[in-house]
């Protein structure tokens, strides 16, 4: 069952309050607020972040919405970062919310309206189709077997069992066969290789170096941010490779002084709404050569208990925790935060980690957003 009871305001409040409590701060310590969601049509409230802003602690404060669709969860942190990095604010509370259970009969109806009114919508297009097309292109280009994608789903759904916010029935210890036998929705996308419809929220407090020192807090630092947009004509893109993710990652690596991502990134949370997307994004992030991320799956390179690889999606991700879109991106950043603080509990990766990366993807499937955190 989805977490359906809370209103958008209530979801925002629960996440914002949890972040403040964790930092040992109160709303009076917050100088500015950034709020994010993906399309308003899910919650069914036009100008949704303005509507729930009071639940995000924004009353009487400088407030800003930032929006890059599904990439918003990570972009909110980027936006919060430049609120503080500009020197204008000591603190910024970033709150991401998404409530998809409101959209009936199915939120895919809202996704239909992101496509061209004449060229695509008359065909009843939805996201599952488009990603089935993209996944097929990726599979075809690199000749990836379905079993490899099933292994990614298995990994994330197992990891998700240890996440306190995991949606009922999403995580679990599935066999490869169970995943391979799950219903075909839009070939090659199968039920257990796609994330669910979810409600949720996530929040993070960003603060200046001076504030952190003054208050004696134990922070994780934002070392790099990057974002990039490909053409909005999805038919024109290299469907097998996310160039926009590569450009976003290179921007963040440059800022963080990362010259060899495979050496310098120790844990990664790539956006994983579909099993293939995790691999697609890992290649865009330069953590594997084109077409090599699937081979590394077989070696356990991306597993949580890897000692020589780069653990990928230790949280369980969108397939193992849930996909309240903007909140899911925020969940990825918070996972890197917990991993670097050594506070991820049963999800803590085995290898030592000093730097991690969270990435989301969205808009009209053409935006990449990247944040690099370090100790």
């Amino acid at each position, binding site marked *: *069952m989805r*977490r*359906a*009871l809370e209103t958008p305001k209530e979801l925002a409040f*629960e996440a914002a*309050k*949890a972040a403040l409590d964790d930092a040992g701060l109160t709303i009076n310590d917050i100088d500015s607020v950034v709020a994010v969601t993906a399309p308003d049509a899910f919650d*069914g409230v*036009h100008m949704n972040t303005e509507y729930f802003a009071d639940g995000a602690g924004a009353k009487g404060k400088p407030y800003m919405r930032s929006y890059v669709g599904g990439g918003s969860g990570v972009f909110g942190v980027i936006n919060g970062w430049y609120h503080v990095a500009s020197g204008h604010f000591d603190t910024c509370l970033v709150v991401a919310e998404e409530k998809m259970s409101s959209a*009936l*009969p*199915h939120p*895919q*109806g809202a996704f*239909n309206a992101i496509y*061209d*009114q*004449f*060229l*695509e919508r*008359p*065909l*009843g*297009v*939805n996201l*599952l*189709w488009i990603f*089935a*097309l*993209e996944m*097929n*292109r990726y599979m*075809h280009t690199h000749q990836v077997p379905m079993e490899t994608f099933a292994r990614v789903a298995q990994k994330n759904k197992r990891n998700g069992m240890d996440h*306190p*916010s995991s*949606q*009922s029935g999403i995580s679990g210890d599935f066999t490869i066969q169970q995943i391979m036998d799950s*219903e*075909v*929705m*839009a*070939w*090659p*996308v199968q039920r257990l290789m796609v994330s669910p419809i979810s409600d949720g929220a996530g929040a993070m407090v960003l603060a200046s170096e001076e504030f952190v020192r003054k208050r004696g807090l134990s922070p994780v630092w934002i070392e790099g941010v990057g974002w990039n947009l490909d*053409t909005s*004509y999805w*038919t*024109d893109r290299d*469907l097998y490779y996310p160039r926009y993710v590569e450009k976003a990652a290179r921007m963040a690596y440059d800022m963080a002084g990362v010259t060899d991502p495979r050496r310098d990134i120790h844990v990664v949370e790539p956006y994983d709404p579909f099993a293939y997307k995790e691999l697609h994004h890992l290649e865009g992030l330069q953590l594997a050569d084109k077409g090599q991320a699937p081979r590394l799956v077989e070696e356990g390179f991306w597993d949580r208990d890897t000692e020589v690889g780069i653990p990928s999606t230790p949280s369980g991700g969108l397939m193992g925790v849930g996909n309240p879109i903007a909140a899911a991106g925020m969940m990825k950043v918070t996972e890197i935060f917990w991993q670097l603080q050594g506070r991820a509990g049963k999800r803590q990766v085995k290898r030592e980690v000093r730097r991690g990366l969270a990435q989301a993807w969205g808009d009209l499937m053409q935006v990449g957003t990247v944040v690099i955190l370090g100790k």
Partner: protein
Amino acid sequence: MLDKISKSTELKPWRGNIPIYHRYTLGVAGERFFKALRDHKQILASACPNCRQRFIPPKIYCEACFEETRDWSTVEGPGYIKTFTVLHRSLEEEPLERPVVVALIAWSGVRGGLLHRLGEVDPSGVKTGLEVEPQWAEVRTGSMDDIQFFRPPLNS
């Protein structure tokens, strides 16, 4: 705070609509494209005067050069399947009676492509790279349904 609601019967929903609908414009390029479909059974591409790149669907600007496109022309020969999917569920997530094949159809030398259904094919026989042609509708109104579906060329 992390409790989950497990009984849907305990939830009291309130149903509502946003009272608005939209009338969209086809636009400058779209009007020309759909008129050609309707009146001449032609698929038009536009081209950038600077880099010579051709575009389907046609647009009035080249994104890369940021120049206005000129030199409209019909695409030659059959298109090919760049990628495809086989649908088993409707937009409302209901099972479909029969699987529907949808493909991204591209033309060599032209950037982009058209999304459309495939017809007169066995879903299990569809392959990336397969050549396809439009099956034109008898009655055409200037919409994507002026092409009923794409299918392998009749003479092949």
